[in-house]
């Protein structure tokens, strides 16, 4: 998708980096996640005075008003009374605060003389308290990306929310696990000055590298979450939440720009067709009778369960609901997203995709007739209980109304392909008040000076140093930098004693080709890499086996490296390799006699076919040479 086709973009980033401190932000629990379900379960509700809810997240409010309750799973080793909101917070974690201050100093931000912990109201239950504790540590500062100065707006230190585990719609109970709740995060927000998809990636990369240079930050998948604020000229500020991969950022930005442009085009087309708010009435019609004899499975199922078929005419929308606004996503998808979200219905049909899904031409015509659809009119259709069907059509209708204005402001979530889906309306300004259980902390000049002296080496310097120290080729070093693996590289080299080039190529080439093959490389942990490389360094594993072992580990994350090696047939001893070489030499004696030592290439190839992954290539080639020499001499 060439950049030239995109409209003018204004984008800002908000980066949340989990810290790898020994303790959580307001208690001494470890910042470790657990896989086991909680052994302690606490059932809670939250409440707010009605008059105070005006500006909280309307979606959470919607949930709240439906009487939602929360089940918190706790696990004794990772959760104490503080996370359960059964004890006031302890003092703010100084280790985490120092990391945040160091980051601020690295980007030249203004660190406040005194910091105040605030309570930011959050009523979706992801915080047992009903608020998130957050501290504004610094404002201002900037980073340089190419020739561009990107201003940093705010640097906050905040507690992470609980992990949502499941939701039981029938009892309106959401289950959260408290292990992650309270872990420290640094939140960095840039000014909305980014003007291209690639630049967005670059800014995220630089900030991510600076954060990683601090050392005590988590690096596993999900430990950094990138939120993007994107708008195009004439569009609206859209917040896209939770982009976990750096490489997804340019796609998300580009697709969002496209989406906004398409929505603006649709708006203009609607205006040309003379569609007005007044014309777009909410008059849902029961069309169950049309589907009395239907072949559509969805329709049959819903109607036999006592549901209805309900349709709404959308005057002037014909052809627009089916118009693609992002790859694979249409305006109709946006209407369906809303219906799913607000009415919790399975799906919503629109006339641009019908006939289809077992709904016949005749049924479509019949619905159009009942609704009184003209040539340019579209309709939407839902099969559900009467109440839900109306709710769904209303939610979709509201989205259709917004199409007249262009781009509605909303919070969207990124899909794995870079497109986005509706997540919730944009929340109003945050409700914040002081956390009176934690005293303000004075940050003295002396403390800042001390931290200034302890600042880590800037990532660019680290790059230079590693290139020199390990004689890394420039392109490989750059790849390590560009994939934020610089620090992992150095640690792996120091820890495992594996050859630096091997470590670098494993990180940059092997993992990339495995990903291309469709191997779920996100399951490969730093511990996996470290023990694989250590095996290679000790000579207990052939370096050729690395891709196969990693592939096996990725698909069986519970497996140890030893188990993986064993299941791949283990590694061959020198004797065994020699035996195989001799066999092959014997089988090809004619050829070798003809060619002499020039037969090496073919023999080596034949041997490698047999031993690949189980013997070191260098050793194999030595043995092949030796055996050839013996045979020909």
């Amino acid at each position, binding site marked *: 998708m060439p950049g030239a086709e995109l409209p003018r973009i204004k984008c800002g980033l908000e980066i949340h980096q989990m810290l790898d401190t020994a303790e959580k932000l307001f208690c001494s629990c470890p910042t470790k996640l657990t896989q086991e379900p909680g052994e302690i379960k606490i059932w809670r509700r939250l409440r707010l005075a009605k008059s105070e809810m005006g500006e909280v997240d309307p979606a959470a409010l919607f949930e709240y008003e439906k009487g939602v309750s929360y089940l918190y799973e706790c696990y004794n080793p990772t959760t104490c009374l503080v996370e359960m909101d059964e004890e006031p917070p302890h003092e703010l974690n100084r280790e985490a605060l120092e990391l945040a201050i160091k980051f601020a100093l690295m980007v030249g931000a203004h660190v406040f003389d005194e910091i105040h912990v605030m309570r930011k109201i959050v009523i979706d239950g992801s915080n047992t*308290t009903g608020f998130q504790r957050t501290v504004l540590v610094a404002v201002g500062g900037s980073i340089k990306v190419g020739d561009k100065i990107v201003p940093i707006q705010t640097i906050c230190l905040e507690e992470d929310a609980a992990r949502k585990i499941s939701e039981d719609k029938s009892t309106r109970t959401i289950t959260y696990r408290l292990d992650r709740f309270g872990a420290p995060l640094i939140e960095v927000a840039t000014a909305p000055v980014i003007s291209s998809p690639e630049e967005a990636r670059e800014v995220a990369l630089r900030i991510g590298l600076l954060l990683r240079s601090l050392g005590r930050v988590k690096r596993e998948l999900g430990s950094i979450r990138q939120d993007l604020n994107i708008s195009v000229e004439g569009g609206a500020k859209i917040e896209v939440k939770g982009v976990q991969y750096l490489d997804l950022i340019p796609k998300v930005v580009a697709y969002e720009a496209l989406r906004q442009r398409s929505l603006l085009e649709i708006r203009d087309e609607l205006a040309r067709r003379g569609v007005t708010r007044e014309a777009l009435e909410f008059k849902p019609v029961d069309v169950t009778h049309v589907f009395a004899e239907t072949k559509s499975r969805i329709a049959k199922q819903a109607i036999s369960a006592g549901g209805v078929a309900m349709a709404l005419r959308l005057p002037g929308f014909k052809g627009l609901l089916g118009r693609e606004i992002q790859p694979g996503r249409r305006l109709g998808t946006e209407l369906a997203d809303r219906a799913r979200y607000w009415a919790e219905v399975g799906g919503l049909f629109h006339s641009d995709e019908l006939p289809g899904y077992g709904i016949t031409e005749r049924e479509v015509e019949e619905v159009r007739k009942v609704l009184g659809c003209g040539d340019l009119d579209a309709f939407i259709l839902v099969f559900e209980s009467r109440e839900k069907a109306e709710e769904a059509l209303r939610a979709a209708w509201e989205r259709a109304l917004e199409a007249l204005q262009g781009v509605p402001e909303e919070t969207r979530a990124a899909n794995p392909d870079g497109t986005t889906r509706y997540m919730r309306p944009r929340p109003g300004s945050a409700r914040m*008040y002081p956390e009176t259980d934690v005293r*303000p902390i004075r940050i003295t000049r002396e403390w800042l000076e001390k931290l200034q002296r302890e600042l880590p080496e800037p990532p660019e310097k680290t790059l230079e140093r590693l290139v020199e120290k390990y004689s890394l080729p420039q392109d490989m070093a750059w790849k390590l930098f560009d994939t934020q693996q610089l620090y992992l590289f150095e640690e792996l080299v120091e820890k495992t004693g594996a050859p630096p080039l091997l470590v670098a190529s494993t990180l940059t080439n092997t993992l990339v080709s495995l990903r291309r093959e469709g191997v779920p490389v996100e399951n490969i942990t730093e511990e996996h890499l470290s023990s694989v490389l250590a095996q290679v360094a000790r000579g207990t594993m052939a370096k050729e086996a690395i891709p196969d072992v990693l592939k096996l580990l990725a698909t069986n994350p519970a497996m140890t490296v030893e188990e993986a090696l064993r299941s791949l047939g283990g590694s061959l001893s020198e004797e065994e390799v020699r035996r195989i070489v001799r066999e092959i030499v014997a089988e090809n004696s004619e050829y070798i006699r003809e060619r002499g030592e020039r037969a090496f290439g073919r023999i080596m190839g034949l041997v490698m076919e047999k031993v690949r992954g189980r013997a070191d290539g260098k050793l194999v080639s030595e043995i092949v040479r030796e055996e050839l020499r013996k045979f020909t001499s």
Partner: protein
Amino acid sequence: MPPARLTGSVGLEASGYSDEVVKWMREHGVRVFSRVRLRLSDGVELRGIVMPRPRVGDREVLVLKLDNGYNVGVHVSRVADVDVLGEYAATLEGKPGATAKVGEGLPRVHFLGTGGTIASRVDYVTGAVYPYFSAEEIYSMIPELEEIAVISAETLFSIFSEDMTPSHWSQLAQHVKKVFETEAPAGIVVAHGTDTMHYSAAALAFAARKLPGPVVFTGAQRSSDRPSSDAAVNVIGATLVAAQAPFAESVIAMHGSPDDRVVLAHRGVRARKMHSSRRDAFMSINSLPLARVDVVSRELKVLLGEYKPRSDEVEVHPRFSDKVALVKFYPGMPGDVLEFYGERGYRGLVLEGTGLGHVRSELIEVVRKLVKDGVVVVMTTQCLWGRVNMNVYRTGVELLEAGVVPAEDMLPETAFAKLSWILGQTEDVEEAKRLFRENLAYETSKRTEYITYPGAMWWEHAIRTPAQG
């Protein structure tokens, strides 16, 4: 504890800032709640509202609430330039909620405030917390009450619970009497700070001999200004007890677990705050709770067979003596600690002894002298669970001979409230001792039951937890 109260205007002197900063503010026309634009010496520009200073920390640091909602502190020496953009008047937007739609024919429940906040609102512009205590405000915060009771509310005291004294107990008892006599509610809910709630609830149990309905103490372990406060669930539970319970005793209604579901009604005389922070901090000691309320299904279940039923009469004896002390024995405690009380004219002494009811032998003579001088000395156990028995060891026997009255399985705090009440009723030492030995409000029982001590139930449950790590 009631949260800090801020009013619309805070004078510079009361702002919490140092004289230097106050002078600087005067010079620049800056007031508390002024909207300002600050330019700092490094060029950074900030916009926000000048806040009063919290009482702690560096008084030279100006606290600003920025437009993004965050509070930050800027040392006044770093401010290069300031423009006052306007003044913020700390008023709450709108009135709380719509008028309550209270169901018809519901029982009436009267709320008495003593300082514990059960409802409050936050002014998000300033961060100030405003306590609520009118009936409308309570309904708007806890709309469930509209289906449970017709409530009325008044504030009796606005003090921290640790500042309560026996004289406050007297006033509270008198007021309870008046409310039942003049307004005849089904029950009374007392909003009380949790720290000394069990003292007040025990005191009221002795003062109120006969009542038409229960007096239900309740409060919050998590302040009511947060969405996760336990206040609302506790108040709903307390109101259900006040409106529906068959008993007319002084009880404490608080969370029975960390869940927002079960509220337990503990007898005031049996209850004790056993945890500094948990929602389920209150436990009945040496007894089961009197009742259990499921706040979700609104079912009330009485758990004990015997109780004081609702009476047609109101009989309250509100006087308490303030010449009673509660003294905890510790190893090496010297005799003059106890002598002090005799010298100062104390009339009653509740000892919190070790184990079955002991103090070191050196104190026995001091105790004997106190008793001879007319001080009523009673013995409780610092074990809390279990009963004193002073016949088992020589020290106990000697203390009995010295005239100490054993308090059986009575809690030390309850014994303190009981003796304070008794000595408010009679000057006669022998009569006081006789009354103390009587079971006046289910504060003791003759049987020591297996099921009331959590011991084995606790560790057997806990070791199902995998090892730490």
